[in-house]
């Protein structure tokens, strides 16, 4: 029996070897059929044809590039024009501003009188101030304290909200990340729904509670609901759930307490999204109008964002400087934190 099998295998091996070494007739390729001279000619032609295709492609990509840059330039121009314009105008003297735009504000709703709507003089759009002056700034900073007070109000409302919301949200999202039992998932879902609710819905409950706690017309009425807003909980939980489980398990094996895991393992991994959230929250609350308008009836409490809309003929002279000053903190933060912002948002795996 063995003999037979061995015989068979030997035959197969021999066959296989034959198969490998079997000479096959090489099909004559087109190139090898040419004589060296002909080959030279043919290659030259092929190269030329290739070059044409390449050139065409290059030209096309260059055209696409030019179009792309032109398109982006237009978009970027539109994007920064209003900012640029505000800053340039803020360096005009108050008199110049009044001369240029006084007409505009007479025709706004609430402007002085209806007849002035039909004045013939057109306002002058001037990009470059005729004489550069820090008039408006000195007016805002030193002579009209109401602007500075409102500015301080803005800071007083925004900074506690950003810090508070991040602290609360980091802890909450740590909990949502660590324990994913059914009840907690339901709660997380409720948070998501809450995050999606527009102000029109959430402001009324907030107002009722503020009234019950008797903190209406104090900064707390805006700060507390802001602190417990759930937007950052959602984003941070999404991010924390992508941290490898092994990190946390290793910490547990080493005997770390929950607090240690939170501060030493999870938070150091969350720098980018926390920074991004801080920037987003800052601009969001720096920009807020609805909440103070409802919660703070007293005008002296309101932030500058509400106050700026009350520009009229009398104070147009310093409005541009006030607007420019109001833009500066978020712009500085953006200048410093753009990369963190972009990185944090793209890392958090929001989709």
């Amino acid at each position, binding site marked *: 029996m063995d003999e037979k099998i061995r015989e068979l295998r030997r035959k197969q091996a021999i066959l296989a070897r034959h198969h490998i070494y079997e000479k096959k007739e090489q099909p004559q390729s087109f190139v090898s059929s040419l004589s060296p001279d002909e080959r030279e000619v043919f290659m030259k032609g092929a190269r030329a044809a290739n070059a044409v295709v390449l050139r065409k492609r290059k030209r096309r990509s260059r055209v696409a590039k030019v179009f792309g840059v032109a398109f*982006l330039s237009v978009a970027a121009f539109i994007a920064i024009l209003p900012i640029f314009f*505000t800053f340039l105008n803020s360096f005009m003297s108050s008199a110049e501003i009044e001369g240029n735009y006084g007409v505009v504000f007479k025709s706004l709703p609430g402007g002085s009188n209806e007849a002035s709507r039909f004045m013939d003089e057109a306002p002058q759009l001037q990009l470059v101030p005729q004489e550069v002056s820090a008039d408006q700034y000195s007016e805002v900073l030193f002579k009209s304290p109401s602007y500075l007070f409102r500015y301080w109000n803005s800071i007083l409302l925004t900074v506690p909200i950003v810090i508070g919301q991040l602290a609360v949200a980091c802890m909450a999202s740590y909990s949502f990340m660590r324990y994913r039992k059914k009840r907690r998932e339901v709660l997380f879902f409720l948070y998501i729904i809450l995050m999606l609710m527009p102000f029109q819905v959430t402001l009324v409950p907030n107002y009722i509670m503020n009234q019950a706690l008797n903190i209406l017309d104090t900064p707390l009425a805006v700060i507390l609901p802001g602190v*417990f807003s759930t937007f950052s909980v959602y984003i941070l939980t999404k991010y924390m759930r992508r941290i490898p489980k092994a990190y946390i398990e290793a910490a547990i094996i080493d005997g770390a*307490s929950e607090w240690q895991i939170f501060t030493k393992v999870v938070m150091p991994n969350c720098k980018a999204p926390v920074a991004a959230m801080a920037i987003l929250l800052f601009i969001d609350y720096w920009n807020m109008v609805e909440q103070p308008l409802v919660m703070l009836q007293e005008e002296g409490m309101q932030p500058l964002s509400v106050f*700026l809309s009350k520009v009229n003929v009398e104070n147009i002279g310093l409005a541009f400087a006030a607007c420019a000053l109001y833009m500066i903190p978020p712009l500085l933060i953006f200048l410093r934190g753009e990369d963190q912002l972009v990185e944090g948002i793209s890392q958090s795996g929001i989709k």
Partner: protein
Amino acid sequence: MKEWGAGIGFLLPSVAGVFLFFFIPFLMLVKMSFQKSATIGDFAGLANYNAVLTNEAFLEACGNTALFTAVTVPAAILISLLLALVLNTQLPGKSTFRSLLLTPMMVPVASIVLIWQVMFSFNGVLNGWTYQLFGLERIDWMKDHGQLLTMLLFLWKNLGLNIILFLSALNNIPQEVVESSLMDGCGSVRRFFSIRLYYLGPTIFFVGIMSLINSFKIFREVYLLTGNYPYGKLYTLQHFMNNKFTRLDYTQLSVAAVILSIAMMIIVGILFLIESRIDKGVEE
């Protein structure tokens, strides 16, 4: 048990605050919406709902908000997607362009409204130009095209975040798929529709939801531009609520909030259903 306790400790501040400021008062609100008035606890049935749903101001506000949302959300998605696609190609000065395009998202609307007023008011710069150069009749932009102006302002302000989201999604498209499509001689249009759009699906929905939420915030722009009682087309839901606030009409207010929250839940629920379907497709 210990684990559970520690978890609760971390969650407690947030849950306490959320229940205190959002859920509990919301339940009170639901109860109030069935009452005769905020102080009289008699059950009124659906009378309040009837009153709000037949209130013309409410209906107009709903219509205006719906129209605004229907125009701006698709526009916000399309424009920011286009910008992100162009930014994603090899162009000189790409990062500068990105910074410039993202700047508007950092600017408070209140600072920019002044420019809008200077440009578009009846005696404004734009009308001045068209009048002087072409002798055109002046257009009362704020009154006749107020919604268009607020849409422009909204788009100007909100495109930045969408661009970031789209850029990160474009970076996450697996490069092998794109390369193999290039090998197979796939053109850029085909590549966009068959590959990129497929991977961008979830992001498009997220951007859509974010824009939807933001579009409900449009009151901010309108208020800053025109104050508490704007021209008809600009009257938004938030105006309705604010005016009820000042008149202390709590039952109507609570009814409006309940109706809105239900509407919002339905819209978002539908979006999430579609999204989960698309998500499944991408994961496969």
